[in-house]
């Protein structure tokens, strides 16, 4: 058994090394070996690592990234936890809306959301020019404003992960607590919450990694008020001339250090406790209708939340999509942007097709690989599983542009040409990069779900003679249904809008949706870029809703059957 686990674990590790570690190492290695020329090898260059204490920009970027990520994680996890618990335990009118809002926020790249906030809050923006609200400008371009926007942008991943994990609850334990006099709050605090700690930590890590590696928000809001972050500084280093891949390597190393510290902290807090609780005493969580004040609170809170979180940034983009001016102050209604976007032979349609096909392939491969990674992490005794976990988190936090550069180094080798593996300049490299980006997210979602399924369930089945595939198909997949659906949808949506990697890697004549939107924005076609975002986003969201419906058909039937019996 152990031998099989080792083979499986080694295989997964090898795939992750090729997809994530190798590209990253080629960039990190530039610190001691500039240009990857062995003749240039010099360990003395490691002194660059200490520049964080010398260069004001690096020091500030490091501190800013750390404080911003910690503040966003702390507030984000509370918000996501609150929303997920409300959604799972109560039935309320805005429940489905909350899901849709979270999914939309999760797939839209942060630079578009940040743009929406800028349209809303800038000096002559929607808030001031149309709503007469002043002061939004000062708020947005400040640390609290940035954290607020960041939380609203990054909470969805955690929300989806927590919500998926809360689909089962330890009914027997909760009932026991209640029978011993514990209030519902006390029972939640002392029984349910501690058992869900892996999920919450996993979700917190998701927010932390996504925030610390976020470039879109950094370039749009933080750079404006002199709040440099590591991703922005890395981008500057990569785009400096002569190009300083060594600096990008050092700065990426700081990100890796942050991740390792966060993982050690998580490991220290959770220790070796067990958190699996699924068994005879667990039940599927059934939402109930809230009453009185609680009902009013839930409805008002979630309604307002959806309005602010999605309504402001997407609504602002929506308004701009009907404008041909640069500012809201001079808004003039036009449908011209949509006419151009929807031209049947338009480039945007081709871009959407490319992005969709990439996302489908990435999601399919990603879910298989992500499942395998989560399985190894949760159920195997593979010695290097912590290393696997670290690699997946690194893939999430390291900015896409660094990974993209690493991909060029790895896949643009002359000796790969005769083997047909010189993938740079071909769409296949985008598939690999998209899978590398999708796996960490899928893995996080699935690990949260698997943590509550005891290994004994699988062992018992194995003892009865069930094969590995049979155990997965009949035990794990049904119990992880929601997590699997969440993972697939997150990977699909995220891949469609993956800007950083496609910008640096896209092959000639193979434009993708985010590249197209970004180019339009850089050409000052703000209204057109906004219209392209709305059309592209609407296509993706529609497909995701259909996918969610189709993937949940079996689940709904089971729920209906359970309710009727």
């Amino acid at each position, binding site marked *: 058994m152990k031998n099989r*686990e080792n*083979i499986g674990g080694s295989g997964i590790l090898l795939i992750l090394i090729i997809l994530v570690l190798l590209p990253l190492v080629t960039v990190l290695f530039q610190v001691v070996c500039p240009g*990857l020329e062995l003749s240039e090898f010099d360990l003395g260059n490691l002194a660059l690592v200490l520049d964080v204490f010398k*260069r*004001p*920009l690096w020091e*500030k970027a490091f501190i800013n990234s750390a404080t911003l990520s910690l503040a966003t994680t702390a507030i984000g996890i509370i918000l996501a936890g609150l929303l997920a618990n409300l959604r799972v335990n109560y039935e309320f009118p805005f429940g489905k809306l909350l899901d849709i809002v979270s999914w939309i926020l999760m797939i839209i790249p942060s630079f578009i959301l940040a743009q929406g906030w*800028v349209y809303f809050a*800038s*000096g*002559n923006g929607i808030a001031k020019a149309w709503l007469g609200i002043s002061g939004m400008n000062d708020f947005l371009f400040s640390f609290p404003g940035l954290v607020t926007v960041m939380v609203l942008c990054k909470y969805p991943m955690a929300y989806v992960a927590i919500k998926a994990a809360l689909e089962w609850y330890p009914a027997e334990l909760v009932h026991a607590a209640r029978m011993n006099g514990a209030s519902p709050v006390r029972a939640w605090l002392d029984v349910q919450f501690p058992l869900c700690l892996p999920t919450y930590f996993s979700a917190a890590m998701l927010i932390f990694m996504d925030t610390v590696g976020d470039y879109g928000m950094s*370039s*749009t809001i933080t*750079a*404006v008020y*002199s709040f*440099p972050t590591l991703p922005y*500084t890395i*981008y*500057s280093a*990569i*785009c*400096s*001339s*002569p190009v300083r*891949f060594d600096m990008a390597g050092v700065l990426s190393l700081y990100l890796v250090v942050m991740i390792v510290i966060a993982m050690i902290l998580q490991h220290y807090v959770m220790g070796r406790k067990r958190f699996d609780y699924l068994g005879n005493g667990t039940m599927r969580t059934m939402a109930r209708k809230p009453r009185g004040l609680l009902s009013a609170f839930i409805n008002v809170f979630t309604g307002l939340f959806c309005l602010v979180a999605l309504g402001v940034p997407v609504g602002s983009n929506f308004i701009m999509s009907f404008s041909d*001016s*640069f*500012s809201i*102050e*001079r808004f003039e209604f036009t449908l011209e942007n949509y006419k151009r976007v929807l031209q049947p032979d338009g480039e945007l349609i081709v871009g959407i097709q490319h992005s969709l*096909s990439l996302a489908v*392939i990435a999601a*399919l*491969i990603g879910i*298989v*690989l992500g499942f*395998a990674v989560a399985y190894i992490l949760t159920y195997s005794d593979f010695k290097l599983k912590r290393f696997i976990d670290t690699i997946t988190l690194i893939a999430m936090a390291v900015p896409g542009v660094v990974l993209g*550069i690493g991909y*060029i180094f790895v896949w*643009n080798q002359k000796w790969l040409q005769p083997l047909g593996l*010189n993938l*740079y*300049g*071909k*769409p*296949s490299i985008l*598939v690999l990069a998209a899978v590398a980006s999708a796996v960490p997210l899928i893995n996080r979602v699935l690990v949260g779900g698997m943590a509550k399924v005891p290994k004994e369930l699988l062992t018992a089945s194995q003892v009865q003679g069930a*094969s*590995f*595939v049979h155990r997965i198909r009949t035990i794990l997949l049904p119990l992880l249904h929601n997590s699997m659906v969440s993972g697939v949808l997150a990977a699909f949506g995220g891949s469609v809008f993956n800007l950083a990697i496609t*910008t*640096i890697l896209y*092959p*000639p*004549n*193979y434009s993708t949706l985010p590249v197209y939107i970004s180019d339009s924005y*850089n050409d*000052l076609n*703000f209204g057109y870029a906004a219209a392209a975002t709305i059309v592209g986003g609407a296509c993706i969201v529609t497909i995701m809703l259909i996918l969610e419906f189709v993937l949940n058909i079996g689940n709904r039937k089971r729920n209906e059957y359970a309710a009727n019996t």
Partner: protein
Amino acid sequence: MKRSMLCVTALMAAMALSACSQSAAETEAATTAATEAATAAETEAAAETEAAAETEAAEASADGESEAPVQTEPLLVYLNDFDAVIPDMFKEATGYEVEVVVGNGAETMSRIEAESSNPQWDVVWIDSMYDVYNLDLDGQLLTGLEPENASGLTDFAKALVPEDKCFYPTGAHAAGVIVYRTDVYDETTAPRTFEELTDERFKDQVGMADPGVAAPAYPLAAYFMDTMGMEGGQEYFTTMFENGLKVYPKNPQVVQALAGGEISAAIMQESNAYEMVHSGEPVAIVWPEDGAPASTRVAAICAQTDQPEIAKLFVNFLLDPETQQELINLGDEGYFEPSVEGVTMKEDRDPNAKLVAADIVFGAENEGDIKAWFADMSAM
């Protein structure tokens, strides 16, 4: 267990392969479709194109030069503007295919650098003259280019051609003109010179793009450092920072900030400034009398290209007055000073607009230091 893992691995491998083949097939199909569409659309022009190519080849033979080169694959051009039109223009003129990879100057340069062991590009055509010169210093460019149309270069452009003739300017635009909001300042209070922007009345009101990220912003910083001396230039920008200079990643953000009222004055590249005026924003443009720092668009050929002859034809094509005239007539990207004589600039471009540029060697050699200093200052 082992068999299952093998199954999973095999499945993944099959999916990956099918993904690759699907994508490849897709690309092939797309290319075929595009080619077919182009062929259909250009049926009428085809005869002319072929005739033009034949004439060119005949002329070349008559001049004793080699015959027209045969193209085995499209010429791959990395650029940051004119991507929508240049492939068709070149094909129409010469019959040769061009594929483009468009990106901002900084991303394009990092892509080129990362590819250095196995370059994929044939020609780079971007407004990052100092970056391109740095490629030459690394031995990545074909030198000794002698395009026929170089004889028509303007004096300004001639002065920018390096001794080893590794690139040619195809046009230059102002990396920074002064733009101000007319609802905040009138002609008497508006800034007229770069020096004036350090004045107390513009405190927290001025913005510009980050020289470390935006391609056109570096020539701007380099010009000050070159003409004022490094210390003088640093002193100028230090005063600007102390006066609340806001640095945005790229020019589009500067445009948004000025249009949105975040700032009331900016140093901005000219095409963006004119676009703001056209869009009806309440802004006016000031061309400093001493000249505006230029961002020069240059064309260079990769030293390792396997189709140098077609690449040279492309560079020569870019130096053709007719080509530059067509690019100027196109639209907002056409706000630039042509590099060859016989081209008419946009009518609304200031006829007295004067461009100035930092010395190429100074700009290239000090690029890393200037950008690092600027980045550290903006973080303080």
